[in-house]
């Protein structure tokens, strides 16, 4: 059976034009997707049932027993951390936030290690953004700053920018100019009109210099800024000012290098400055399929997009203090629930060492690096494959993920709702 217009749940692009062929409850072929998307859909290797450690090794257990044990671990904790959320649907994320409030825990999502600093910058100076549809139909200048879409978001260029024909951009490949800014020449730079190579850690200075040039104070800028010549900066500033509609897309090259949120803030303020001359927007290249959704869900429930601490009963937010990395590095938390993420594979070593010392429960369909340090793993279904739900694209557009096969595995919403109900019952509420 061929299913058309399937949404790929892998990255923040949430491409919604996949053709998927299903046979006997298995996905056998995926068309239109990139390699990352195809691999997500086909050859999905799942855990069959909940597993727990019994001292010597792993034993299979039932969902009921696993949820009971998870509830006890969370109830016993003085500072539980609930981390992950970005690969599941919004409905499950909502229950996760309510669970954190119920047990007085800290709830954090993967933005903490990707675009968290972008959100801090947006909270300082706002976000001049738009949807990807606007970019596709109008933008004649694209800047990719500190990101490599060809590797990380392979269909971004063909669906929205360089190779996408838009309503006002008929001959995209000729009409659109592309500027790539990075510390090294990446694959995306090969298709760029202009490549700006910045010394590592030099983005802030280059952005400051561009702001000064755009507002006519190029005279103070020295001949070379972080490895970029003044001539090139002036040329880039002119290209920006002469564009009809410019769009800056930025990645972890800005958010996770020295300066972090201040780099992003500077980029937003450059966008602001350019809007005195023409139309310009800026947007983050979000990683996980539904990471934008976690920010939306967290914000509409708690007022804050990530790193929310409920230990005093009310929501407190202070990245650097209530973020998962900082809590783990300081050894603060005494239990952890990981949902739809793999911190053991991505977090710094001292954080993973602390995770290995405390009881960790993981709700994830796949055996992964975190499996090696957790006490209990409960597999749920995968949003976009055998579970339906809402996800948010990187530009904030909600898209419904379809369940394209039936596996009988409970989805994350059901598992978390049962866990929530059990904890609530034990607390006598």
């Amino acid at each position: 059976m061929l299913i058309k217009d399937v949404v790929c749940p892998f990255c923040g692009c949430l491409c919604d034009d996949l053709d998927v062929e299903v046979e006997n409850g298995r996905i056998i072929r995926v068309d239109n997707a990139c390699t990352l998307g195809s691999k997500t859909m086909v050859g999905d290797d799942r855990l069959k049932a909940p597993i727990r450690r019994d001292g010597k090794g792993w034993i299979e257990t039932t969902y009921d027993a696993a949820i009971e044990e998870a509830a006890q671990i969370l109830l016993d904790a003085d500072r539980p951390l609930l981390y992950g959320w970005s690969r599941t649907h919004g409905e499950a994320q909502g229950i996760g936030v309510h669970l954190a409030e119920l047990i007085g825990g800290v709830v954090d999502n993967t933005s903490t290690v990707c675009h968290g600093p972008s959100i801090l910058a947006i909270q300082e100076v706002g976000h001049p953004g738009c949807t990807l549809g606007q970019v596709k139909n109008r933008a004649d200048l694209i800047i990719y700053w500190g990101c490599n879409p060809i590797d990380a978001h392979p269909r971004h260029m063909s669906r929205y920018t360089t190779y996408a024909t838009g309503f006002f951009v008929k001959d995209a490949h000729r009409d659109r100019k592309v500027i790539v800014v990075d510390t090294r020449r990446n694959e995306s730079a090969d298709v760029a009109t202009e490549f700006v190579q910045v010394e590592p850690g030099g983005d802030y200075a280059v952005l400051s210099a561009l702001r000064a040039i755009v507002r006519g104070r190029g005279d103070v800028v020295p001949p070379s800024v972080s490895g970029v010549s003044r001539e090139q900066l002036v040329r880039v500033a002119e290209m920006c000012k002469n564009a009809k509609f410019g769009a800056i897309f930025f990645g972890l090259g800005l958010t996770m290098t020295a300066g972090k949120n201040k780099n992003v803030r500077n980029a937003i303020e450059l966008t602001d400055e350019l809007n005195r001359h023409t139309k310009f927007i800026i947007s983050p290249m979000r990683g996980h399929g539904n990471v934008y959704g976690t920010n939306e869900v967290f914000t509409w429930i708690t007022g804050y997009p990530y790193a929310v601490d409920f230990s005093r009963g009310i929501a407190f937010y202070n990245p650097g203090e209530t973020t998962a990395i900082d809590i783990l590095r300081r050894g603060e938390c005494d239990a952890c629930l990981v949902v739809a993420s793999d911190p053991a594979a991505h977090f710094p070593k001292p954080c993973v060492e602390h995770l290995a010392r405390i009881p960790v429960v993981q709700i994830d369909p796949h055996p992964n690096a975190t499996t090696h340090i957790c006490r209990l793993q409960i597999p749920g279904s995968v949003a976009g494959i055998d579970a339906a739900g809402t996800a948010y694209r990187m530009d904030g557009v909600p898209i419904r993920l379809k369940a394209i096969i039936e596996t009988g595995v409970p989805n994350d919403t059901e598992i978390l709702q049962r866990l929530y109900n059990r904890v609530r019952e034990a607390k006598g509420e």
Partner: protein
Amino acid sequence: MRVILEAKVRKKPFLPIEAESIIPRNFLKGTDLAVYEGNKERKLVDLFRISVEGTAVTPEKIEVVLKGDTSRVKRIGEYMDAGKITISGDVGMHCGNFMSGGDIEILGNADAWLGREMRGGYILCHGNAGHYCASGYRGEKTGMQGGRVEVLGNAGDYCAEYLTGGEVHIHGSCGDMAGVEMKGGQFIIDGDATRPCGNMKDGTCMIFGTVRQMLPTFERIGTKKLPDRKVTVTVYKGDVANRGKGIMMVKGTGRSDE
């Protein structure tokens, strides 16, 4: 009156304690105060051995002395308005938040957000201070507005971010982006600084050590002799990217490429 609080040894020593109730004024009514340990509310006496010497009728006459391991005790001196707090060891985050009067003396190191959004009073830290010393809160456009913060050691990144009023004096060096978004006040760094005063709008920053990665958007406007320091400094105005009118003084001749 002296209130001595000695931290008891805890089973989970890394669990943070939030103790905004530890300000001199609160001890006028006794020592029955609440603090939070993780997600549990505790009595002050559960976590500290308390001894009180003498009596007082005004908070100005009260000194609170903290002993033992207080490195995970957050928010000590939050909203403090009078009296004195002495911490004999290290102190946790947010010490002296929103403080408007009185003195805090820390004999060890201070964790992040020391004197955050401070309005008055004096904080002296004998050791090092963490990140965001004397700064603002996330998304807040006004940082420290008054008072004085003095750190005898080094400070971490984003020291004096959004400084709006008052004085910050770091005797050692600062980390990355000291004085970023400064809007007023006076900021003195005796040691080194990296990328200081980005996006500065107003205020004065003096750096007597080495400036690393000087930002390209500061306009050199001359030199000045500082007789009390016996040095000549190069004076910059900026941040030009931000139409800023801030003044940054750097010891020596400044940027090497000029």
